[in-house]
């Protein structure tokens, strides 16, 4: 778009962000696969096996205190330029005392599972069920991993990119695209 960057860098915010990154680097140096800041939002990609430890640290460290999990969702990267590993599970953390947001991500391939964070934030329960239901990413150690929006006997995972937008499952099986 022709629009120039209109966002002003808030110095205080940038310092606060770097505090989060600094603490994460100290604690989990090799586990941070990627760090990205875009539009004043920080994204950190970690290895699936580290997600529970990173979350627990972020929640319990008093300087960070990410006590509120806003959201967990998934992305199927099948049609992105970089499509392997295929799935991304995205966590949106929020710190009520420090008014700060952070986006965490893990990447897994087809059939691989992600450790659950229900032990860190109870609210992850339904969010993870939704990711499992709509993307087919299983969560290890989840207390109640069932489909949540689709019927229990549904075939396929509708938010995958190779799932057609308009189709009934039967039709889809009879006429592969």
């Amino acid at each position, binding site marked *: 778009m022709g629009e120039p960057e209109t966002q002003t860098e808030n110095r205080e915010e940038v310092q606060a962000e770097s505090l989060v990154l600094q603490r994460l680097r100290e604690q989990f140096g090799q586990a941070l696969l990627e760090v990205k800041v875009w539009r004043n939002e920080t994204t950190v990609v970690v290895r699936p096996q580290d997600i529970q430890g990173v979350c627990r640290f972020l929640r319990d460290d008093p300087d960070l205190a990410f006590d509120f999990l806003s*959201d967990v969702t998934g992305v199927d990267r099948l049609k992105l330029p970089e499509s392997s590993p295929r799935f991304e599970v995205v966590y949106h953390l929020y710190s009520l005392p420090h008014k700060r947001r952070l986006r965490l991500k893990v990447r897994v391939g087809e059939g691989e599972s992600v450790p659950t964070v229900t032990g860190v*934030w*109870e609210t992850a329960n339904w969010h993870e069920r939704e990711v499992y239901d709509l993307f087919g990413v299983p969560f290890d150690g989840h207390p109640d991993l069932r489909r949540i929006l689709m019927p229990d006997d549904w075939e396929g995972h509708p938010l995958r990119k190779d799932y057609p*937008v308009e189709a009934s499952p039967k039709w889809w099986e009879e006429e592969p695209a």
Partner: protein
Amino acid sequence: MTPSHTMTLNMGPQHPSTHGVLRLVLELDGEVVVRCVPHIGYLHTGIEKGLESKRYQQGIPLTDRLDYLAPLSNNLAYVLAIEKALGITVPERAQTIRVLLTELTRIKSHLVWLGTHALDVGAMSVFFYCFREREQILDMYEAVSGQRMMSTYFRVGGLVADLPPGFEQQVQAFLAAFPDRLADYEALLTQNPLWRQRTVGIGTISREDAIALGLSGPALRACGVAYDVRKAHPYSGYERYQFDVPLGKIGDVYDRYMVRMAEMRQSHRITLQALARLQPGPINVADPKLLPPPRHLLKKSMEALIHHFKLYSEGFSVPPGEVYQAIEAPKGELGVYLVSDGSARPYRVHYRAPSFVNLQGLSRMVEGRLVADVIAVIGSLDIVLGEIDR
């Protein structure tokens, strides 16, 4: 193993006091709820999938259908997320109109909550009064957009049209009468012993549990947690308005009632300020790639004709990246997570629906309580299945 003396009762999905197609499986010991398992998904319409297949502007009408009691809040979260990814800010007048209308939306949404919640608990007349006032806000929706419910009024980069003549007087007339109306509802309920018996100390949830369960909006603030996205991360110029964030103490049904009643007063206050701030000016960003040119230019300007054609045949593209934009919707933190691959359609859109998360707290609030309290607690959560099931 289920002990033999408990009974399993299916409540919903066709039950008037579950506020839509919510189904609860209740395990009862006499009249006491031992376990409550919600089943959702009956209204799943694949809105997130649908948004991926539509161009950015085309998706806005779909978002109306999430929380259909507050369509403009859903519009706002979506267009703000796209505007954040584009790196643009809309002109002042558009921001003020957005604040004005989303605060009216909050009042409208809270009126439906109050009416139906009171009806569930047995106070019939409140329902009629609330819907009388809501009708006036629906008339305003109709005046600005031509639609009473699915308004689709906001656009990426501004608004679809400016306010119609006489709109400000219409809002002023409503605002002048509203505080008295609100006092009427409170006179019917706040000190009513029957109302208090059904709500005080019912469905209590602790501050710690509410945070762990991710509750937001009035359900969280009723526990005394002062988290309001409008204050914590102002958008659309909320930092310029004077308003308070009402808080409760113990997080029971009555606190949630009091918080929402006070919020309507604050929304009234913000709406008055927004009216006073309304100055003539542009309502759209001056970018012909985002918004269609004025109609009269199409017959004179080749440029305008080309822009018009390109906008409606290809749409506009958003730079690759991802953003999360949260707003304070009537039900709580409404977040939009947008992933762009640089094309004219969103690669992925996810709605963090406040009702979805708040409903997760239901089991915690009703287990160990009477089955009649389940009705009162559902009413106090103010859920809309449209955004839960998406």
